[in-house]
């Protein structure tokens, strides 16, 4: 019974590893964002899919960009900090204040993503899941509760349509 229950249970989250990574995310975020503790955090990622067709060779290449996403409900602000799967460092933050953005909405197709247009020139589509197992591509963190809170914030307080 033990064997089969384990077999059908599927992969389990290593909470120790997940908590350590959540702590690292907080450290990195607070390092680059002033009053970082005022923001709640989730992990998200962007996908850059490029299609190519070189005669008889065609296909697609996907680049994953890892992100620490912070949000402050009071100021209706989302801050995005680029990082890497092992959380060894991070880049400069980008602020998306609701009062300054062009539009924001949740996309369902082709992928479930939180889309923000800061202006007409570009956009950012943030993908986020409760947990992603592949540590080589994504940050290993379990965030069911935080993601639910972010989704609620985005849909009810941040989205413009």
């Amino acid at each position, binding site marked *: 019974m033990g064997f089969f229950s384990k077999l059908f249970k599927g992969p389990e989250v290593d909470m120790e590893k997940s908590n*350590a990574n959540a*702590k*690292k995310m907080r*450290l*990195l975020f607070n*390092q*680059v964002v002033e009053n970082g503790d005022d923001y709640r955090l989730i992990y998200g990622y962007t996908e850059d899919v490029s299609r*190519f067709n*070189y*005669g*008889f*060779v065609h*296909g697609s290449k996907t680049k994953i960009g890892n992100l620490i996403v912070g949000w402050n409900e009071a100021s209706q602000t989302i801050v995005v900090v*680029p990082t890497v799967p092992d*959380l*060894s*460092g*991070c*880049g*400069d933050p980008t602020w998306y204040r609701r009062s300054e953005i062009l539009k924001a909405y949740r996309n369902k197709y082709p992928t479930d993503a939180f889309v923000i247009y800061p202006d007409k020139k570009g956009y950012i589509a943030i993908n986020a899941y409760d947990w992603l197992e592949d540590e080589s591509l994504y940050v290993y963190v379990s965030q069911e509760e935080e993601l639910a809170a972010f989704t609620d914030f985005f849909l009810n307080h941040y989205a413009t349509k």
Partner: protein
Amino acid sequence: MPLRELGAFLLLLVVVFIIGNLWFHMVEGVLDRIKGLFLRRKEPPAWHPLPPEEENQDH
């Protein structure tokens, strides 16, 4: 005979696959070099490493 034809067809597929891969890597290499020429002047993005003492605590 059909076996020989099947083998020849599989061999043809392998050859197409190899040539396709070579072609792909060649085109990608050329494109990367061209991109490199244009992006050379761009400053590298700022990077903030995780504080080392915190990193060591987890190991």
